[in-house]
Each structure stands twice: as C-alpha cells, then as structure tokens.
C-alpha cells in the first residue's frame, strides 16, 4: 500500500469501524478521518500510529527501489492484454529465445 488515504480507509473497514468510531478511539474527529480518507489532509506520523492502533494494527515502514520507467511501461503494455493473450505472448517470446539460441 502506498497511499495514506487508502491505508486509513482499509484499516478502518477491516476493523469494522465507522469514521465516527475510529475518530473516538484515536482521539480525533470524524471530519479529520474523512479528510484523511479523501486524501485532502495527511495525518502526522503520531496520529497515523494512533489511528492504526485504534484499528488493532501496528505501522511498519518499508522501502523498495524505484522501478525503472521502461519496465513500468512494458508492464503497462502487458497489463493491457488479457491473461490468455499474455500466456500466448510468452509462447512467442520463448520461441524467439530458442531461435536466438538462448540457453535454459
């Protein structure tokens, strides 16, 4: 998950809480929770920890490399195909690989 609005909304829903319930438990207001979920306000790290705890969750921070733009473009092209088309396109790649004398 890479956006705070989605994180807050999904944690709240998974905990079966209304915005009002969550606000009360996390010591904030319902309009503040609504703003976080719409992405028009970003909670501080401390507030986000309280929101997570109120949903029975603990936050963790992770990092991953920024993908190469051409890899993303290629992935988007594959994503525009159906799974069956992707499967068949793989067969073509494998044939090309064999024609090019690639090793397995």
């Amino acid at each position: 998950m890479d956006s705070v609005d989605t994180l807050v909304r999904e944690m709240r829903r998974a905990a079966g809480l209304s915005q009002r319930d969550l606000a009360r438990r996390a010591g904030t207001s319902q309009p503040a929770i609504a703003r976080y979920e719409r992405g028009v306000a970003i909670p501080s790290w401390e507030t986000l920890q309280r929101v997570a705890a109120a949903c029975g969750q603990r936050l963790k921070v992770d990092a991953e490399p920024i993908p190469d733009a051409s890899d993303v473009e290629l992935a988007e092209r594959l994503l525009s195909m159906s799974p069956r088309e992707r499967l068949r396109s793989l067969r073509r790649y494998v044939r090309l690989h064999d024609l090019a004398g690639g090793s397995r």
Partner: protein
Amino acid sequence: MSERTLPDTALDPERLLRALVEHGVEFCVIGALAAWLQGSPAVTLDLDVMPRRDLDNGDRLAEALNSLGARSPSGDAVPLEGADFLGWQSQRFETEAGPIDVVPHAAAIGGYEDVATLELALGEFAIRVITLDDVIASKEALGRPKDLAALPALYATRQALRQGKRRDE
C-alpha cells in the same frame, strides 16, 4: 538403465496448464509465470506449480505429467505415481510441453494452503496464480542472483498495477 539427455523442449505454458486442469489437479502457478500472467515483463522459460499435497491430487498430477511424457532432467522416463508428490522436495521434469517444476513449498510463502491466490480465466479454462505480492515475497526471501535480478520487473509491475487501480477509482 542408460542415461541420456533429452533435447530441450520449449515451454508451451498453455498446453501444460491445460493438461493439469483437464486432469483435475488442484494447483496454483507460482514464480515468474504467475508474475508474467499478472503483467510482469520478466520472461520465464519454465512453469512452476504448487500442488495441493495429498495422495488423490498427487495421483491426478502424476497422470497429467505422464500424459505429457514427463521425464527426469537426465532423460529417464519413470511412470509417475501420486506418492511421488507427497514429499517436500521440489522436482523438475521435462515434458513434451516444456519444463515444469513441482514445488510443494516455497520460501516465505509456504505451501498450497498458505498462499494468497487469484483466479485467472484463460479462455476455456481458468487457473489460480499466487498474487504478485507473494511472488515478490518469495523472490526477496530466496535472494539468489536470479531472484534478485527479477525483482525490478516485479516492482515495476506492482507500480503499474497501482497506477492502473488509481485510474480506475
């Protein structure tokens, strides 16, 4: 028994998957093909499957592989039976539709009962594949050079999926 090396047969993933489905094998696709089917641009030359580990399913898997003339990588043809798939060891076979790895348990994600999967329709049949997040978790945990080399394409696919999802919302 004399040993001989089989000529490589190129992967025909559709034929392999169809044979498994037609024999009623309960399995999910893992590894690079699972990622490819979800949009990852990293090409793979074999199929990795994780079967449900029980004797009946092993019997069906053995029948499916026998129907494809499965042989050990050294070229030995041994008719397979269900009990051959009750262990935890990964096994590789060459078949008339290309190489297949049978993987009962994978690093970080566990076995058939543990993995998160999604169903993909492939025309006349459907299969289950592990989620992209599980493919990534497994590759990160394995950490072999070939796994690490696959990660950039997997991260790129995850980003493309997120961007697509945001556009759909």
